[in-house]
């Protein structure tokens, strides 16, 4: 019940953002508001198990969202560095690739997903596969320095941030 309600409210907010500027009740027309209420109630009922698996409401804590906004700073910096690195390798063609394994010790699905996406967008690394039992990540590294790398070398301290955001 609670998860259906929260999903419906989230869907309604997204609908309002997409239809902004259509009329003159605040910014929306009455037809859009009625259609949005009906559609978001339907979305809440049918999608109640998608956002909150196992009735777990830890992501409603606003502190986690503040940490997420703070995380965007180091993340965008690492992403800019990644692009300059790729530019260097496109121009010189100097690569030394390989697939290595790291164990980030993250347990939740959301944490692993965020870490995998962050790794894909940051310097020289691309997540290839996940061992779902041991929570290990297999990573394609474009410039292998050691065959058994430390976590810090690959993901720039992202696991510490993600543990605060998503665990």
């Amino acid at each position, binding site marked *: 019940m609670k998860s259906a309600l929260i999903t419906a409210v989230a869907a309604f907010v997204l609908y309002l953002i*997409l239809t902004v500027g259509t009329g003159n009740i605040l910014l929306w027309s009455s037809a859009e508001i009625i259609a949005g209420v009906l559609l978001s109630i339907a979305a809440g009922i049918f999608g109640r198990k998608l956002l909150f698996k196992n009735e777990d409401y830890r992501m409603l804590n606003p502190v986690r969202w503040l940490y997420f906004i703070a995380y965007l700073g180091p993340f965008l910096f690492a992403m800019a560095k990644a692009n300059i690195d790729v530019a260097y390798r496109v121009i010189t*063609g100097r690569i030394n690739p390989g697939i290595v394994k790291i164990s980030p010790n993250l347990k939740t699905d959301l944490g692993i997903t965020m870490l995998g996406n962050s790794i894909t967008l940051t310097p020289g690394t*691309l*997540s290839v596969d996940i061992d779902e039992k041991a929570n290990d990540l297999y990573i394609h590294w474009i410039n292998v320095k050691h065959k058994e790398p430390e976590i810090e070398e690959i993901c720039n301290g992202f696991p510490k941030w993600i543990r605060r955001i998503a665990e």
Partner: protein
Amino acid sequence: MIETVIYIFLAIGVFFNGLGSFGLIRFPDVYTRLHASTKCTTFGSIFTSLGVIIYGVYYWHTESTSYGVLAIHAFIALLALVITNPTGAHAIARAAHKSGVYPKRAVVDKLKEKGDLSD
């Protein structure tokens, strides 16, 4: 003034998009091509879209509200792009490894040593 900022953002975006496409031609195997195409086209698209968002927000104040709607929708499209692009790259890399395409000139391949993961 604001036009110069938009020109700079568009130029950075076009440069990185071009770099990603050029890397797609130049690199030797699937995984390195994914490096070039995912990182560079995501970063380049962020900058071209930021150019459009700044354009929309600026003319929202001076001309009409339809420019504001343009900026908001461009921001949502950008958000969808940034979330979906690395996930798609991960899916392609995993599928390539499972279908038997291994990295060329690889120094080490821990995943092949372990054998394919059964989930």
